[in-house]
């Protein structure tokens, strides 16, 4: 069976709730392998208790987003940086 992921554009709505800009146009660098690219090119596993965005190069976790009823948890320890075009 194929793995259940979609591309990083799936992060646009959930992240717009937290950030004022569309973060999927930003560039992230993977803390594991160093590959950099648009957030929209991450592999997002969304058949899960949260959104798990993985590096298309090494499959390590770059970003995790959990949305509870009254708060969101954003874990970016897998990203070196997020470069946001302004």
């Amino acid at each position, binding site marked *: *069976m194929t793995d259940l992921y979609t591309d990083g554009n799936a992060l646009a709505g959930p992240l717009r709730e937290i950030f004022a800009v569309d973060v999927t146009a930003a560039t992230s660098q993977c803390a594991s392998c160093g590959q950099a690219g648009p957030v929209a090119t991450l592999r997002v*596993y969304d058949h899960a208790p*949260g959104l798990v965005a993985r590096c298309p190069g090494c499959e390590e976790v770059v970003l995790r987003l959990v949305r509870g009823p009254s708060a969101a948890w954003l874990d970016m320890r897998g990203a070196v940086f997020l470069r946001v075009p302004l």
Partner: protein
Amino acid sequence: MAVVGIVTPGFRGRPRSSGPELPPGQYLTEDFPVLSAGPTPRVLTDRWEFVISTEAGQEYRWSWAELMALPSETPTVDIHCVTKWSKFGTAWQGVSLDTLMSDVDTAADFALVHSYGGYTTNLPLEDLLNGQAWIAYRYDGADLAPEHGGPARLLVPHLYFWKSAKWVRGIQLLLDDEPGFWESAGYHDYGDPWREQRYQGD
């Protein structure tokens, strides 16, 4: 012709009037949804191993053949996913953690479960003992499929199902609690479905 013929032969659900109720906020599903936080690892059984490591650095290892040689149990249990589906009467075969832990010398109170593919989940060691947890390798009469955690997964059905780590490869016994993959990203440290412990602070 006898009227009994209209009884649905394949229906195995519990009578709604007398069966156990669903935990709060859950709905019943008849299929078996596949949830995954990453790519499905393909682990060959001739390379598979299961390792329990203690706080003193001791390691206890089982190959696939050694796991198969241990006495197995066939628990039929209800499972509850934190994404709100529950499934009644799931039938498994596996080795009890009581069997695997019987010779392990430890003073640990906590366990961090590790999976092939990097997933982790934590729980108190006592929740793995006394007939509450298994290393399961068959489901519904067949070998456990990779998308459901095969060749073997942890089965600890009294907690939300994210604790029942797919593709289990080992258990690290610890003196202090260490949060796992979802527990470090907003989900509850313990995850009791009957107390609806979904998120931190619940």
